[in-house]
């Protein structure tokens, strides 16, 4: 860490002393980094800027002429009822899915933590298994399970004397149905929380009990803060994923099937589904690029806000 060798001052570049060794190793560093560097330029940064450029054009690969249209695409988004509708659906879903999935996952993780031992492993597997089901199979499966007439879910509700709604055709119930489907795959989050819970030192609870803290106090004051890193992580990641929900819903309600009577209509139109439709079904790629940048901006803002806010609440080991 010496900044000088043999008494000579060595320049520090990018936080590293610029020595012969550093210089010699640099070509190795570049070699090792090369996959990422190439990928970053060709498949990430380049395309991002390209998308930005396209968003100011009316590019359509079928049409021979592409014109620069200024901010027309962005202006059009403001008036496009599909944008408003799909944003509403997406946010509605996210606002319900994220807290629900976190709550249920935490409950399940706490239960696993309580049993411990081998049987915890068994139940953890049971909770996780739905996660290895491909999303397209999840969509197909719930297309059958959610059938309002004789699907399993309404069958179970019927057993309790509840007349289950029409999950696939009634616009009011389409999104709740999708949320139910999404909760089937909380297993991932359960595993993360369970791992975090196992890292909470037992002594903290002992000490709390000696001080006469109730179970609820212990949960609030020890458990939650101690796993706040995992909670925060899943909060951010699940939010980002929810805002991009696509495959399951696309499988159930969209694609090549056309002109059929389905009541879902607007209720199942999510933002990325509309974006995909514009980009790859009608090839209005200029407009779709503008939609993509709006999504990027929304996700960026939400993530930054989440990070800012959570900084005050998250406890990191060793701080």
């Amino acid at each position, binding site marked *: 860490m010496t900044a000088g060798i043999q008494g000579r001052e060595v320049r520090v570049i990018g936080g*590293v002393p610029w020595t012969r060794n550093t210089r010699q190793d640099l070509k190795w560093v570049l070699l090792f980094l090369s996959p990422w560097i190439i990928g970053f330029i060709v498949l990430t940064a380049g395309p991002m800027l390209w998308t930005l450029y396209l968003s100011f054009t009316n590019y359509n690969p079928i049409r021979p002429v592409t014109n620069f249209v200024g901010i027309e695409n962005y202006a059009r988004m403001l008036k496009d009822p599909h944008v408003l509708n799909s944003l509403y659906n997406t946010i509605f879903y996210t606002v319900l899915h994220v807290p629900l999935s976190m709550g249920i996952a935490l409950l399940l993780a706490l*239960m696993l933590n*309580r*049993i411990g031992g081998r049987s915890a492993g068994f139940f953890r597997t049971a909770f996780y298994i739905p996660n290895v089901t*491909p*999303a*397209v199979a999840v969509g197909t499966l719930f297309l059958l399970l959610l059938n309002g007439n004789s699907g399993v879910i309404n069958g179970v509700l019927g057993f309790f004397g509840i007349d289950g709604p029409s999950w696939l055709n009634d616009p009011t119930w389409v999104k709740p149905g999708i949320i139910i489907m999404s909760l089937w795959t909380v297993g991932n989050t359960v595993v993360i929380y369970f791992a975090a*819970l196992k890292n909470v030192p037992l002594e903290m609870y002992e000490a709390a009990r000696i001080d006469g803290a109730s179970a609820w106090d212990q949960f609030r004051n020890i458990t939650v803060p101690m796993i706040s890193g995992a909670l925060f992580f899943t909060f951010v990641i699940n939010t980002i994923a929810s805002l991009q929900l696509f495959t399951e819903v696309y499988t159930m309600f969209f694609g090549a099937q056309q002109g059929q009577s389905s009541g879902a209509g607007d209720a199942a139109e999510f933002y990325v589904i509309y974006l995909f439709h514009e980009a790859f079904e009608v090839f209005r790629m200029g407009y779709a690029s503008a939609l993509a940048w709006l999504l990027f901006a929304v996700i960026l803002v939400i993530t930054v806000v989440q990070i800012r806010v959570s900084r005050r609440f998250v406890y990191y080991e060793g701080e």
Partner: protein
Amino acid sequence: MATGETQLDRTLPGSGARVAVGQKIDPGKLAFRVGFLLLLAFFTILFLYPLVWLLSASLKPGSEVFSGGLIGSSLMWSNYPKLISDQPVLQWTWNSVLVTVLASSTVTISSALVAFAFAYFRFPFRGLVFGLVLAGMMLPGAVTMIPNYLIWDYLGWTNTLVPLWAGNLFASPFYIFMLRQFFLGLPRELFDAARVDGANYLRMWWSVALPLTRAALIVVFVFELKVAWTDLVKPLIFLRDLPTFTLPAGLKAIVDNPSIGGEKHFELLAVGGVIVTLPMVIVFFLAQRYFIEGIATTGSTGR
């Protein structure tokens, strides 16, 4: 009940209340335990039943998918050969296997390469560059999707399997992060010894670093196995003709199209669902440890 008891006694105090070993159980606590186990059983059924139902539906006559119990009036194994002969399911399976294996191996190797640079070398702006890598994790796919399509199309590789895996040659942020953690855990002296032997860095990475992080590499590999196997978006964008489809794309085609067995042929939809799901379930049971370990570590990404 005896075993359940000892298990409960060894309980880690998740929500606080803890039963001391050997303590006598009062009826209130017993009721609590029974309720607890019932709740656990309830959730287990909730998560497993849909898969059982899918399997059962795939073995029923078409008219009974929605009715009756889990076993139909006859066990229709013939649903499977029917779908496989109606549709190029075997071709789809082969395509899926090819894509998945190529995607997983390439991303594992390339990410390990990049991760090693961040773990071992000190170089200018390392922190900044690493931050850039991590930022890539948050990036919505939509914002690069269109140009990626245009690039692969320009290269003449649309309607082939290449775009489904070749992007993985260029490493993936999340795996770089994960593998870097593992590399950081290796004692530096190991590498210094190898340096004395005169090995170059690439040799050192290959013959010292990789063997020691085998477990982590497997985690990355099985993770990507799942990602690549289940992906529908890339096939939707890049593949055009049925014979080039992967299994998820094929299943979506079946769902969409009554003339190729979908929509109203519910039993065949279920068959498709089972065919695309089963390989992942098998992989999961073979590599369960790695799956769980991998996901558990993702939680620590937040730190």
